[in-house]
């Protein structure tokens, strides 16, 4: 009889254990759409606030993925029809210019407007960046201008290249992925813009960027199965493959070629020429 009791107790316990674990799997967990991001700016207004998020602690020279949310204080909800647009602007002592940037869209998450900006240079005391933001809320068009600070990446690695191509066009090439490189074949991603004027940086499509990763500290060791980066219209980025055979410092030698196959910038790596003038640097 006593034994029976124990058996029942055990059965009961295990049953509840099993059902609990079942519950855990089935309950959808509410994940914040900005989970893992840092709110780097918040612009207060009378009836709403604008929140600006980045993966990084602050904005840096190079590619920055930025998320924006606008909260309607009256309803305590995030606005899904703000249709925001933005324009980064660098105020130098002698001139002003903008920076390559994408449009802001909320296709992934209706309350979060995402886009990216490639800052070409850091800000300092006398030369500073501003972000002009236009959006609508409750039928009213708003415009905010936010002074932002852009720093050099702390790792000091070159991940953004601003250069004059052989076609006398100025290009901006910025590294996007992998953010967390691995000893593996990594998905390599970059964005390419050209500078049409101080204010206009259109995206460049259908060029090709060759990829040749090297370890200068290891006699310029390279790796197999890399894939050159080509334009993907869906992401509006250049995608390729990057093989890294070990951790350490890597120099990703690049060559930019236009749609006719003409080299606009960069050189092949050979015995005599250990590096290309167009490259990214990685450490991990």
């Amino acid at each position, binding site marked *: 009889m006593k034994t029976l009791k124990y058996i029942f107790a055990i059965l009961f316990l295990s049953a509840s254990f099993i059902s609990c674990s079942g519950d855990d799997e089935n309950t959808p967990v509410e994940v914040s759409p900005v989970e893992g991001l840092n709110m780097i700016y918040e612009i207060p207004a009378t009836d709403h606030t604008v929140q600006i998020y980045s993966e990084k602690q602050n904005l840096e020279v190079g590619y920055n993925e930025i998320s924006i949310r606008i909260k309607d204080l009256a309803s305590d909800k995030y606005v899904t029809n703000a249709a925001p647009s933005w324009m980064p602007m660098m105020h130098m002592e002698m001139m002003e210019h903008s920076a390559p940037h994408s449009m802001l869209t909320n296709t992934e998450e209706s309350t979060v407007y995402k886009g990216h900006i490639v800052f070409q240079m850091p800000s300092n005391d006398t030369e500073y960046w501003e972000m002009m933001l236009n959006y609508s809320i409750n039928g009213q068009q708003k415009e905010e201008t936010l002074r932002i600070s852009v720093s050099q990446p702390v790792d000091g690695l070159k991940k953004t290249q601003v250069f004059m191509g052989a076609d006398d066009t100025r290009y901006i090439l910025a590294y996007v992925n992998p953010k967390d490189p691995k*000893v593996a074949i990594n998905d390599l991603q970059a964005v390419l813009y050209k500078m049409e004027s101080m204010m206009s940086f259109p995206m460049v499509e259908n060029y090709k960027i060759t990829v040749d990763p090297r370890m200068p*500290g290891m006699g310029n060791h390279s790796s197999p199965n890399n894939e050159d980066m080509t334009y993907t219209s869906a992401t509006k980025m250049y995608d390729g493959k990057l093989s890294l055979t*070990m951790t350490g410092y890597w120099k990703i030698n690049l060559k930019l070629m236009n749609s006719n196959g003409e080299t606009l910038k960069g050189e092949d790596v050979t015995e005599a020429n250990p590096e290309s003038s167009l490259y990214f640097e990685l*450490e991990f």
Partner: protein
Amino acid sequence: MKAFISVFPLKGMLMGSLLCTMFCGSFMAQLYAQETPVDSLKLIHLNEVVIISAGQQLDHQKQRKPLSTLDEFLESSRSIKMVKRGAYAWEPTMNDMASERLAITIDGMQIFGACTDKMDPITSYVDVSNLSEAEIGSGQQGAAYGNTIGGGINLKLDKSNFKPTGWTGALESAFETNNAMRVFGGELNYSDEKFYFNLDGIYRKADNYKAGGDEEVNFSQFEKYNFSMNSGYKLAEDKSISATLIYDEANDVGYPALTMDVSLARAVIGSVSFNKDTLFGNFSNWESKVYFNTIKHVMDDTKRPNVPIHMDMPGWSETAGFYTQANLNKEKHHFFFKWDGFYNKSYAEMTMYPTNSNEPLMFMLTWPDVRTKDVGFYAEDHLSLEKASLKLSARLAYHSNTVADDFGLNSLKIFYPEMDKTNTRFLKSFSAQYHQMLNNFHIHGGLSYGERAPSVSEGYGFYLFNSFDNHDYIGDPDLNTESSADANLSVTYKKPIFEITAGANYFHVFNYIIGVVDPTLSTMTIGAQGVKIYTNLDYAQLFNASLSGRYSISNAFKLTGSVSYHRGVDDTGENLPLISPLSYRSALDFYKNQFSASLSIDGAGEQTNFNPDYGENKSAAYATLSASFGKRFFLKENDLFLKAGVENILDTNYSTYTDWNNIPRMGRNFYFTVSYSIN
């Protein structure tokens, strides 16, 4: 247990087709020689047994150099050649095939080295102090120990095995002048019919050795010690349990042929076995064992000058396994069955320190935590016929490899994006050996087929630097199983005072695994010439032939000699690497009234069949002369045995085809051994 009891014979034998044999035999020397007395009544066995330590009996007279390293003992075998990367941890090869193609076990236990660069063949983790003999089986005759192509070697531990000897002990010491090697060893044993206990230890320390002409070979020093314990207890008249524990550690081991040395090579080897005289009434000698061993190996380049980049390269190998085996005798049939299995974990990493210390460390997994599972069943039947015998054997095994480390798996996927984490295969081995006596002639012949899985390095190695051909090696997880069809034949003419044996063997190895240059790949090691990928060649052919003889001039004098010929080519007719040139050895031994002496010569012809693609160049012909003298004294009940000798009397400066990067071998060397045993 095994069938090795009788010692024997011939080694390698021949193979190929008869035709080939006859053809070659007509002008080629075959066979190996050596002093082993042949007991032919026991038929078959193409096996050889190298007596290593005669333990308590102090039977050192038979040995020219009693406290030499295990490597030297193995080298004295007719069938084994040792690849040398320095003065320590030589790698055994048999039929011109090395570790990956051999099954090498210690008392039946599978053990795998932890070094990606083969600096720790498992023979380096035991010492002569705890071994009694090495059982050697050529080709599939070694399949009892595991899956093999070239052969099997089992190093048998020295145990008292319930002999009623009571307390015994011995102290031994040796000194060698060339590298100032000091050896100290001792053992203590107790044995009666119910219980036995053996404890032994040995310590060796050597400085750099000098090649002929007083040329010091830097980084050839080593230091090692080894302890072992064996004990057994009789549970009943027909039942006993026994246990073994070995601890072996080497430090400060130089490898002059390599770019790195070793700061630690450590093995702990343990086993427990259960023995019963009978099983189910019909079976006899039932033995079961479970075992575990763990090896740590740490390479070290901190003492080398001009290192382009400093690196740490530790490796670990752990193996757990079991076997259970029994004999069954039915009339003319003598069956032997063995069921065995093991699980091995091999993990090795490399960390490089960049010259610019601001850069992060460079890290890679050179062995990605490969888990190997192997379960096999082996059976043989010895059929005794009139004046003849037939031995049939087979091994079937399930073998799988899994890459357990994701970092390592992703690393390999750089080369093999589609690779699977796990690879399984079924390995088969079959062999038939026939022995016929015709008056004074003994004819041995056999045909066999065997398969082996790629080694961890061949399947999963990641930028393993081979200093011999100066290439980085990368494994291929999708390699096909290597298989071999081989044939052997030998003929012995035997009289009481005279014996001569001619033998040859031929291996046709399908899917032969070897590194092939991939010119598209970039080297990792600074200074390397290129990258090789382990690849299956369609086939390779290996042929070994030997002629050996023994002549008892008188009761006291005995003359032995052997000469052997070897050839190995790949599927395009190119030479395979590490194939012996024509080699020979001869010895005159004297033994009378507890006094022993020997004079021996060892040599090889010029290596004409070499392959520069594998880093080989022509090794010149050489010959060395050695001598030894020994005397045994009885002090009351105890034995004192003294032995002295000189190797390479003429101080020849030479290197052989087995010497990695042609490092020269030891020059003139005097050695002295003292053994005192207390009975």
